[in-house]
């Protein structure tokens, strides 16, 4: 009996909260808020906040065309894999006190799991056989390399700080990080973590591929690169994945630096998380989008491996000496 209840509970986690349904609703809403905010900042009216939902269902109703040069199975399957992988990451990220599935993954695992959606979009694009996708693939991969180094440093700094405080020297577990913050207050209140938090905020638009780090999609230049040949439902799934990725990265920030704010009630926590994610999205994605122009790929790389890496490294060195 308990096995059945457990199974149903896990199914509920995967399908409803913090799994699919939550990801779908929250991700799409974040995307809508972002579009609306950017429009307001640019003194446009902008689409309604629910526009991403309309777009999603419209695309699902459209015909799907697979180009002749494409490898069909990989082309059609890659979007689904990417979405599923993102939802699984969301399951591992604690929502303040609440962890859906604990003890199964740590921050290094999260670091690698974040690569899977990127790899799936790259494989899908590569399978389409389009040269636009070829250019997009090259830039997407370089963007990933750019973000990886500072992200690694940020995660190691957090692991060291929490580990020091807990007396184990190191703490890789996300649950441990959440528990530490519940007991001792958010990590962002520590001076040593401030540069890391800033670096993480700068990493968010790079990881999601938003302006000005969207060289890989560059609609006006290479026709959305990897998505150039996608149409219909697979395109809708990729758009959804993009929205969910915004949610995943902002909630990862919340889990790493803003833990301990939770009320203990799951519904309220979920709402609080969404509000935090929306604020972070407005700050890191919408605002940056509105005031910058697209960078070239080599500039993106240089920016991340100098400015952002320096911020993260400062934090790691401070954490190392126990500040």
């Amino acid at each position, binding site marked *: 009996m308990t096995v059945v209840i457990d199974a149903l509970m*896990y199914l509920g986690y*995967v399908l409803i909260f913090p799994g*699919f349904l939550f990801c779908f609703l929250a991700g799409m809403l974040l995307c809508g808020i972002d579009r609306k905010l950017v429009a307001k900042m640019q003194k446009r009216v902008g689409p309604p906040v629910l526009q991403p939902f309309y777009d999603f269902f419209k695309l*699902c109703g459209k*015909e*799907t*065309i*697979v*180009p*002749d*040069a494409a*490898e*069909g199975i990989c082309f059609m399957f890659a979007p*689904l894999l990417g979405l*599923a*992988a993102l*939802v*699984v990451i969301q399951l591992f990220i604690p929502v303040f006190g609440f962890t859906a*599935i604990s*003890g*199964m*993954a*740590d*921050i*290094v*695992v999260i*670091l*690698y799991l974040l*690569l*899977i959606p990127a*790899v799936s979009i790259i*494989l899908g694009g*590569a*399978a389409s*056989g389009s*040269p636009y996708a*070829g*250019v997009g*693939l*090259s*830039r997407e*991969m*370089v963007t990933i*390399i750019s973000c*990886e180094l500072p992200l*690694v440093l940020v995660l*190691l700094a957090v692991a060291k700080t929490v*580990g020091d405080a807990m007396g184990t*020297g*190191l*703490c*890789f577990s996300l649950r441990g990080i959440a528990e530490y913050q519940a007991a001792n207050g958010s990590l962002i209140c520590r001076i040593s973590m401030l540069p890391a938090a800033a670096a993480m905020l700068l990493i968010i638009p790079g990881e999601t591929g938003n302006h000005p780090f969207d*060289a890989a999609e560059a609609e006006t230049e290479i026709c959305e690169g990897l998505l150039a040949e996608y149409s219909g*439902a697979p395109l809708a*799934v990729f758009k959804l994945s993009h929205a969910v990725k915004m949610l995943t990265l902002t909630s990862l920030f919340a889990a790493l630096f803003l833990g301990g704010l939770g009320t203990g009630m799951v519904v309220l926590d979920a709402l609080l998380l969404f509000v935090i994610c929306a604020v972070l999205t407005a700050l890191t994605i919408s605002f940056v989008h509105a005031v910058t122009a697209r960078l070239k*790929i*080599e500039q993106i*790389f240089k920016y991340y491996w100098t400015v952002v890496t320096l911020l993260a490294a400062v934090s*790691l060195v401070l954490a*190392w000496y126990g500040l």
Partner: protein
Amino acid sequence: MNYLGNILSYQHFPIYAIMVLFLGSFLIAVFGENRIARNILALLSVTAALGFVAALIKPVLMDGEIISYWMGAREPAGGYAIGIALEVDALSLFFALLVSLAVFVSGVYSIQYMNRDHNEKEYYTLYLLLCGGVMGMVLSGDLFNMFIMVEILTFAAVALTAFRNTARGAVEAAFKYLVVGCMGSTCILAGTAMLYAQTHTLNLAQLAQLVPGDVNTATKVAFALLFVGFGTKAFIVPFHPLAADAHGAAPASISVIISGVLTKSGIYGIIRITYFLFQSMGLGTMQFLLVFIGSLSMFVCVTMALAQHDFKRLLAFHSISQIGYVLTAVGLCTALGVSAGLYHAINHTLFKGLLFLAAGAVLHETGTTDLNKLGGLAKKMPHTTVLFLIGAFSISGLPPFNGFASKWLIYQASYQKAVESGNIGFLLVTVIALVTSVLTLASFVKVSHSVFFGQLPPELENVREVSWGMRLAMGIFALLCLVTGLFPGLVTGYLTEPAATAVFNVSQYIEAMGFDGSAAVQPEAGSFQYVGAWDPVSWLLVLCIALLAVTIAAAAGKYGNFSRNRAARREDKYQLFYGGEAQELSQLGGDDLFWGFKHNWRGYFNYMHRMHSGIVNDYALWAVIDLALVMLFSLIVL
């Protein structure tokens, strides 16, 4: 009956495992004209070797016994080991298992892969000689025998590198390998001679007993010579250019052996000399040497791989980059580090073997390994593509494949070491390892795009899938990649932790041969405790549920319905894109794919390009400089 029982006792299995390989080699040299006899002999000897080694798992790895075997029952007389000995502890057997497994799979692959070559008889003779050499080296209990076996395997490997001697660069590659390989062998011989002069014994166990008590300048020089000698066999920096040339020229089945087995013999030698022979010289400082060279190999080779446009050369550089991980982890001198390094050694054999076999399959069907000329093979060779992708994901460390399981342990081990020792240098190692991993992913994204996806060149319209025997060999490796990735507990519990325990148990190694091991310097092992959490099976379960849910939802929404766009041929559609530019100048595939990255590092890449001149004199000079530096290091610091 009693006699038969005596012959079949597992005490004899180590020597049988070596013998069947050499015997197969000689028999093929004599009776190998007939194709069927040749294949049967080759398969029999590799299977028998695998069987003999596998039968030793129970007594050695699980029960922790150390098999000591004196040839002709010549046991030590007067306190000195005169006879030739084999000594099989968990570490030796661990490497022997890797050897026999790779040799077996590569043997299966060879049968259909080599069917278009002439001189198959010579191929199998040399192949089994090479395999027997490596097997003999890892099971030997005698430093001089290790040298003999190293000589046998070096010469067999050189001959096999030049096997397709009509191909461009094959003889040149073999010549480079011969020159630097001989310098390495000479170093090993010189180091052995210096130790012999000092201790009057060649037996490893007795050396492990005598050397620590009497460390002087000669011992330190001997250490440097042996370290550099085994370093050339493992192709660690600065010997990496030889690996690229050798792999580029050798048949794929030989690349599997060179990368999966021969480099491991070098790593085995390095572990043996640092942990067993020279333990008293201060593991803490030797640590620096191993970790520094390991991290350097990791990073230099992965960036070199990014600049390659030949499938097999690219794989060769990655091979050394992964060996860098192994060396770094082993050099951490903690139980967790050694266990993680050995785990990565298994995985390296498996995924690298798989990738080289996939490259061989592409070469077999298309006749080229040039990334700029290939493309779109996924439609023609679907099974090879899937198998290649498993290998590519494994080496880039994507969960749930095996590369992740071992890299995850390496990051933990190095970070834990950094925290425990308070040395910020080890932190840098963790960061380099993590960045190397994502660069590896980039490199394999390039290969999969340039070879299996992207556009199919018109010349390759008639390519077909490779034969079942080759797919079977790749399938074995792919399956093992998944198993070792999904059940890390089994691998660490039954293979790497016993082997790592053996590494830290020097006195037991000495006493098994009947010498007094009480004075041995036992390094502090530490525990196998993890700081992180990773449960691949449950993760895969959750991913599958999620994937199933998406797929069902998608299917309900008529996701699978699509129409093929056959009207627009790619020539018309993408003309605009090229805009008159020569196709090879665009960044669509091949070596220049990650232009954005390489542009920022152009100083570094140009420097590397100049350094890797391809002239054997330069590489020989590097070997001499390396030897001088290691000698200086060991004289001043150790």
